C-alpha cells in the first residue's frame, strides 16, 4: 500500500513536472539558433520601406542600416550575408509576428521602452541607433540652437509623442511657441514647405529623409539638438538567451571593430595583429566565438561581409548616403557620441 501511494505520488510529481516543462516550452522558445541553422537562413522582420533603414529596390533587393544588421547576424552564423530573408512588417503586427516565430529577429527601427519589454515578453539586446526628436528650419533663419526657437510657429504631427515632447521641451526651457498640428505627416511637411510655419519637428532620422523631398533641400538645416530618447534596437523573444547573445554580440562586435580601427578593407591585416584586443575580436586568441555557439572567426565574418559599425552607418544613412545624417549620438563614445560596446574578453 505504502509503495503504491509512494509510486502514485512520484508519478504525479513527474507528470506535473512534464506538464510544466511542456507549458514552459510552449510559452518560451529556446531553439531559435537550432531552427535557424537547420533552415539555413535568418528570418528578419524589417520596416516595409524606410529610406536608409530598410527599403527594397524594384528587383526586391533590400538595403539599409537595419537590413545590414540582419545580414551581419547571418554572416556570423553562415559566413554568408545573403542567408538573411527579409519579411516586411508594419508597426502594428511586428511584435506579434516575432512572438509567433514568423521571424527570428526584428530589425525594424523599434524604440526600446520598458513597457515593450515587460508587456510583450520581448527583449531588446542593445541599441543599434540612437534616434530622437529634432528640428528642421530654413537655413536663412541663421539659427543653430534649439534654445533660440522662442516664439516660433512649429509644425508637428498630431496624436504623437513628438507633439508631447515638443510641449515638454518648450515648457522646460521657458519658451513660447505656436503649434501647427496636422493629422498626416505629409500635411505637416507641406505646411512647412509652403512657409506656414518656421520650424518642423519629427524624429531626427525622419527629418533627414523628409528634407530630401522638399522643394529646395539645401535651403533647410537640421539642428544638432535632440530633445527626446528614441533608442532603436533589434528585438528578440525573451528567454532564448543563446540567440539573444548572438544578436547582442553581433552589434557589439561591429562597434568594437570600429573602435579598434578594423574595417572590411583591412580585416586580413587585422588577422595578423599582435594587439590583444584585436586578437580577441578576430579570434586569433581565446574561444569567444565558440562560447557563443558560433565559430572562432564569427566577428571576422561580420566585418568582412558587412563591415564595422561606422562603415554600415556611413553607407546607409551617413555621408555615403543621400540622407547624410551626421554621426551625432551614434558616434563612438571616445569620438563625441555615446555608442559604447562592452569589451570582448
Amino acid at each position, binding site marked *: 500500500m505504502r509503495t503504491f501511494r509512494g509510486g502514485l505520488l512520484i508519478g504525479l510529481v513527474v507528470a506535473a513536472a512534464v506538464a510544466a516543462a511542456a507549458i514552459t516550452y510552449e510559452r518560451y522558445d529556446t531553439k531559435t539558433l537550432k531552427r535557424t541553422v537547420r533552415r539555413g537562413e535568418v528570418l528578419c522582420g524589417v520596416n516595409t520601406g524606410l529610406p536608409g533603414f530598410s527599403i527594397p529596390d524594384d528587383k526586391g533587393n533590400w538595403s539599409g542600416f537595419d537590413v545590414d544588421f540582419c545580414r551581419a547576424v547571418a554572416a556570423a552564423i553562415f559566413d554568408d550575408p545573403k542567408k538573411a530573408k527579409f519579411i516586411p512588417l508594419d508597426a502594428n503586427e511586428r511584435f506579434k509576428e516575432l512572438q509567433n516565430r514568423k521571424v527570428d529577429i526584428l530589425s525594424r527601427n523599434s524604440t526600446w521602452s520598458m513597457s515593450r519589454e515587460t508587456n510583450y515578453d520581448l527583449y531588446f539586446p542593445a541599441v543599434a541607433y540612437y534616434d530622437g526628436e529634432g528640428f528642421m528650419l530654413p537655413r536663412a533663419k541663421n539659427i*543653430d*540652437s534649439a534654445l533660440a526657437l522662442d516664439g516660433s510657429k512649429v509644425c508637428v504631427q498630431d496624436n504623437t509623442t513628438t507633439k508631447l515632447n515638443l510641449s515638454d521641451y518648450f515648457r522646460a526651457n521657458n519658451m513660447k511657441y505656436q503649434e501647427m498640428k496636422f493629422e498626416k505627416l505629409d500635411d505637416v511637411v507641406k505646411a512647412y514647405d509652403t512657409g506656414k510655419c518656421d520650424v518642423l519637428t519629427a524624429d531626427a532620422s525622419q527629418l533627414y529623409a523628409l528634407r530630401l523631398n522638399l522643394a529646395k533641400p539645401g535651403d533647410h*538645416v537640421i*539642428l*544638432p*539638438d*535632440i530633445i527626446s530618447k528614441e533608442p532603436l534596437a533589434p528585438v528578440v523573444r525573451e528567454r532564448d538567451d543563446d540567440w539573444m547573445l548572438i544578436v547582442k554580440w553581433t552589434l557589439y562586435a561591429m562597434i568594437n571593430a570600429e*573602435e*579598434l*580601427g*578594423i574595417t572590411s578593407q*583591412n580585416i586580413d*591585416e*587585422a588577422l595578423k*595583429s599582435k*594587439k590583444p584586443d*584585436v586578437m580577441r575580436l578576430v579570434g586569433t586568441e581565446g574561444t569567444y566565438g565558440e562560447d557563443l555557439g558560433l565559430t572562432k572567426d564569427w566577428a571576422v565574418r561580420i566585418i568582412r561581409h558587412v563591415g564595422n559599425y561606422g562603415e554600415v552607418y556611413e553607407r546607409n544613412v*551617413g*555621408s555615403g548616403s543621400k540622407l*547624410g545624417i*551626421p554621426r*551625432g*549620438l551614434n*558616434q563612438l563614445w571616445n*569620438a*563625441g*557620441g*555615446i555608442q559604447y560596446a562592452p569589451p570582448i574578453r
Partner: protein
Amino acid sequence: MIKFRQLIWITIASIGLALSVAPGFAQQPDRGDEPGMIPDDSVELAPEYQKQMVYYRSTEPAGTIIISTAERHLYLIQGNGRALRYGIGVGRDGFQWQGMVSITKKAEWPDWTPPPEMIARQPYLPRFMAGGPGNPLGARAMYLGATVYRIHGTNQPDTIGTAISSGCFRLVNADVADLYGRVPVGTKVIIRQKPEL
C-alpha cells in the same frame, strides 16, 4: 571602317588617359603642393566637410579644438554637447600624428618657409614664399606648440577631406578665417588618430 579605327584609337587613348590621371586622383599624395596657384573659391565642399554645428559630447571645456584625422574633421568645442565642425585635409600616410599641443602663434596671410625636411622630400618647393592667395598656407595660420605643424588655409580647396599634407591641417580660407577669429593663442588642441592594428 575609318570611323571604326578612329573609335579604337579614341578608346585606347581614353583608357591611357584614365590610367594616367586616375592614380593622381585616387592617391592625392602624388599631387603635392602647388605654390602660386590661385584657389578656386567657387569649389563647394561635400556636405560632410562644410562648416556646421553638430552634436559632440566632450569632457573638454568650450574653446578646445579636437582634430580627428581619420574623420577629416576639426571640432571647436562649444559646451552643452555641441561643437562647431569644419572639414579639413590631413597628413598623408606616414605624416599623421597625434598628441596635445596648444596654439602658440597666429598669423594672417602667413609667409611660407618650407622646413628643410620638406625641401629634402620635395626639392621643387620654393625656399621662401610671401603670404598671399597663391600661398599654400592660405589666409590664416595657427602654429601648433613648438612643432613645424600648423592649422592653416589652403590654395587647394578641393583637397579638403583628403590625406595629402606633410602633417599640417588645412581648411578652406573662409573656414580658417572663421576659426581664427574664434580661438586665441593658448587654445588647447587635441589631435586624434585612428587606432593602429
